[in-house]
C-alpha cells in the first residue's frame, strides 16, 4: 500500500464519499446522482464496464473503496461525453471517471498493466518532454508497452499502417530524431512541475 493510500485510509476512515469529494476531480458531484442509470446505458464501451458510472457512485456511497479504486471500469471511458450530455442531474460524469482513474493511479491502486493507464503515461511523458505529441515515438513505445518480443510482433502487425502513414506523408521517420516540439521546453517543464506540486500538496485539501 502506497504511503499516500495509507494516509488517505486513515484520514477518511469509513467515509469514502468524503474522500472522493475532497480528492477526485469533480468528486463533489457524486452525491447528486439519483441512480437513474442513463450514464450506464449511454456508454459506448458499456458492456466492458465491470461497474458502470451510476453503480460506481452507489459503491462510493456504500464505502466500497478498494473495489472502486482498483476497478478497471473508469479506464474504459472513451471521453465520448454521452453521459454528461444526457445526465438529468448534470453530473460531469466523464470528468469524474477521469478523476477516479487518476486518483486510483496516484494511490497505486489502479489495476496493474491496465493498457489505457500505461498508454496515458507514455502519452503524458511525451507531452512533458516535448510540449507536443510525438506520434511516432508514442506509436513505437505503444508497441513495446508489453515487452520487447510482444513489441516486435506488434510492430510487424502495425507495419502496414506505419508504411501507409509514411506514404501519405502523415508520419515522418525524422520524428524519431527530434521531431515536433515546443521551443520553451524548460518553461513548460517548470510549469508542469509546479502544477504537480500544487496538486500533490492540495490533494488532501480539496473540498475542505
Amino acid at each position, binding site marked *: 500500500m502506497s504511503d499516500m493510500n495509507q494516509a488517505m485510509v486513515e484520514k477518511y476512515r469509513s*467515509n469514502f*464519499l468524503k474522500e472522493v469529494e475532497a480528492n477526485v476531480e469533480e468528486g463533489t458531484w457524486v*452525491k*447528486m446522482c*439519483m*441512480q437513474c442509470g442513463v450514464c450506464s446505458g449511454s456508454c459506448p464501451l458499456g458492456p466492458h464496464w465491470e461497474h458502470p458510472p451510476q453503480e460506481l457512485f*452507489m*459503491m462510493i*456511497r*456504500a464505502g466500497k473503496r478498494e473495489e472502486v479504486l482498483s476497478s478497471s471500469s473508469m479506464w474504459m471511458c472513451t471521453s465520448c461525453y454521452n453521459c454528461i450530455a444526457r445526465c438529468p442531474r448534470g453530473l460531469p460524469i466523464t470528468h469524474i471517471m477521469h478523476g477516479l482513474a487518476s486518483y486510483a493511479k496516484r494511490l497505486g491502486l489502479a489495476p496493474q498493466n491496465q493498457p489505457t493507464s500505461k498508454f496515458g503515461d507514455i502519452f503524458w511523458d511525451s507531452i512533458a518532454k516535448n510540449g507536443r505529441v510525438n506520434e511516432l515515438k508514442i506509436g513505437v513505445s505503444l508497441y513495446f508497452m508489453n515487452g520487447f518480443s510482444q513489441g516486435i510482433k506488434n510492430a510487424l502487425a502495425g507495419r502496414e499502417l506505419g508504411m501507409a502513414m509514411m506514404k501519405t506523408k502523415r508520419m515522418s521517420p525524422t520524428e524519431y530524431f527530434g521531431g515536433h516540439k515546443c521551443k520553451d521546453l524548460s518553461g513548460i517543464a517548470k510549469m508542469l512541475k509546479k502544477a504537480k506540486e500544487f496538486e500533490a500538496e492540495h490533494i488532501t485539501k480539496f473540498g475542505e
Partner: protein
Amino acid sequence: MADMKIGAYICQGCGIGDRLDTAQLASVAKREGKAAEAREHAFLCNAEGVKMIQDDIAAGVTHVVIAACSRRAKTEAFSFDGVAISRANLREGVIWVRPDTPEAAETTQEMADDYVRMACAEAKYMKMPSASGEQGLVRDILVVGGGISGMTAALEAAKTGYKVELVEKTGALGGVAAQMFKKYPDKAPYNVLADNTTGAMIDAVNANSSITVHLNTTVAKTDGAPGRFAVTLATESGASKDITVGAIIQATGFTQYDMSKLPELGGGKSPDVMDQLAFEKMVKANGGAIKKSDGSDAKNVVFVQCAGQRSDAEGHLPYCSGHCCMTSIKQARYVKEAGGDATVIFDDLRTPGADGEDVYRGGQEAGVAFSKGKVSGVEAAGKGLKVNYTDKILAEDTTINADIVVLATGMVPASGPNPYIAQEIEAADKAGNAGLAEKLKAEQASAPVSILNLQYRQGTDVPHLKSGFTDSHFICFPYETRRTGIYTAGPVRRPMDAHQAIEDATGATLKAIQACENAALGRAAHPRSGDLSFPSFRKEGCTQCKRCTVECPFGAINEDEKGFPQYNEARCRRCGTCMGACPVRVISFENYSVETVGQQLKAVDMPDEFSEKPRLLVLACENDAYPALDMAGMTKQEYSAYARIIPVRCLGSVNTIWITDALNSGYDGVILMGCQKGDNYQCHFVKGSEMAHYRMSKIDDTLTQLNLEKERVQTYEVSIADIHRIPQIINDMEKLIGEIGMSPFKF
C-alpha cells in the same frame, strides 16, 4: 290549478320543420297537452322567438313547454324566470337519431308527438319551487381541531368576514405542526429549511376577535342542518355551551401509526428506534442536537421509509402517506446540520411536484445519503443499532450501523367512527362473508369516540370512503363529504403534509362559507347547486316505514318521535332517492314527483298489440346517460323509434311504481340507465344508482304477477362516454321484444 296556463312552443329550426309536421305537434299540444297557447316558430332560440315566449308569459302563461332541442342546449335562450319549464327533445332526441327516409317518417313523427305529449304532461304537474325558509343566514362556522388545518380554516374564515368557533380537545393549539423543529418554506426555493412558524399562527388565532377558541373542549352534540347547526360543546371541566353555526369544518388530523406493530423493524424494542414525530420532538427539545435516549450524541441516523405502509400485510397501512419522504429528507438534514451522517433507505423516493425535486436535490446537496433498498430488520448491535437491508442497486444484502433509526410510519386519519359499520356488518353477515364480518366487528369494538356526535338518523360522524378517510367524489369534487355543510380538511381527508393541509383547509373554508350562504337562500349544494326544490311528504299517507330515512345517501332525513320523516331541506341534495324509496309514494318535489314522471309515461300514445309498434320506456340518469344520448344524437347514432326517454335526477329517484305503471299501460320493455355503483362509484349521489339496482332486483315479483318476461325490465350502469353503447342497448331491447313478443297490456 285554476291559474295554470300552458304555452307550448314548437321550433322548426335545425331541420325540425323539414323532418316533422310541426303543425300537428302544435295541435297535439293543444288538443292532448291542453296547452292554452301552441305556437310554431322557424327559429325559436333567436331573439324574436324568445320574445314571443316572453310576451306570452307576460300575458299569463305559467308553464312553458319548449319543443325544440335538448334541455342541455340553448339554456341561455330558454331560461325564463318565474315559470315552470319542460322541454321536448325533438332534435337530439328525435330527428338526429332517426334516418331521414320516407319509411321512417311516420314513426319519427310519432316519436315527436309523444315527446310533446310528455312535455305537456310534465309541465302540468310541475310547480315553481321556492325555498322553505327553514333557516336564515348564519355567518358563524365551527372548526373542529386546532392543528394547522383547523387554525388555517379559522384564520381564512375570519379574513373573509365570518365568525369562527374553534374547538380543540387538548389544552393547546398547534397540533402536530407545533411540534416540528423546522419546516419547508412556503414558496420556492424549496431546497432550504425554514423556521417553524406555527407559534406565530397560534398568536394570530388568539389575537383575532372573530375567532373564539375553545380549548380542552369536544363536541358533545351536533343537531340541525346547514344554516342552523345546533352544537353543544363540552369542556373537560364538565361545563357545556350551546352554539349555533352555519357550517362545520372537521380538521381533526391524524394519529401516527403505532410502530409497536412493527417489531421486526425494532418498533417499541429500543428507545432509539422512533417514528418521525418522536424524532422531530427530540430534535426540537434539544435545539437541533441529535441525541440518543441515553443522552449521548447520535452520529449516524438511518431513516426507513414506508414502514408499515404501502403494504397489504395484516395490520399495515395499504396506502402511502405522501409526506414521509419529504419529512425524512428534512429530518436527515437536521442530522447533517448537527454534523452527523444520515441515510434514507427508500423503495420509491416520492417527492413530487415543483417543490419535491428541489427538496430531493437539497437533501443530496446537504450530503444526505439515499439508498434504494428494502429493510428486513432492525436489531441491537453493541451500544447501537444495526439495520439489515437489501441494497437494490448493488443487489446485495447488507447492514448499516445506526445510533438512531427513524421509522417513516404512516398517517392514520382521526375521522371518528364509521357511521355505517353496523349496516356493513349486517350486510357481511347476510352475504355470509364471515371473514369480513369479523374484521368489521373488531373495527366496531375498537372504534374511536365520536367527533361530531351528529344527531342524525344515519349515525354520529361523517362517513368514510376508504381506510377511514372522509371523502366522496375525490377527483372532481374533493370537498364533497356525504354530510351537507360539514367539510373535512387536512389529513383526515387524505394523507398530506402541512403545506397541502393549509391549501386544503383554505378550500374547505370556502365550501363552509358557501354552505352558509346557500342554506340561507334554501339553495341546494353540489351537484344540484342552486336547486330550490326540496322533498316534502303527505303525512296522512305515510306509513312510517323509515325507508326514506335509511336510504338517503346524505343522512339528511331524521325521524320524529312518531317515526315520521323530518326532511331538513339544507342537508338535502335533492337527488330524490327518498322519493324512489317510498312504497306509498307520498314524497315529492315541487317540480319533480311521482306525477311529473308518471304522467309523462302515461301520456305516451300506446299503439295496440298488433300494430308492431312496441313502446320502450327509458329512464335515464340526467347526469351521464342523458348527455350520452344527446351526443349519440349529435353524432347521428340511430336508435329505435319506439324508445321514449325520460331523464331522471338520479336513478335512485326511480320509484318502482313507474315501472309497474309502464308495464300495466302496455310498455313492452323498460330500461333504466344509471351511473357506475360500487367502490369506484360514479353516481353523483353516491348511493342512488346502487339503491336503484337493489330495488330493481326485486321487480321480478311484479313481472311474475303480471306474468311478463323478466327481460322486459333491464337496469344498466352506463357512463357519459357510452355514446355507441347506449343506442345499442335500446336497439337490443327492441330486438328482444321482437323475439319475446309484444306486451299484452295494451288498451
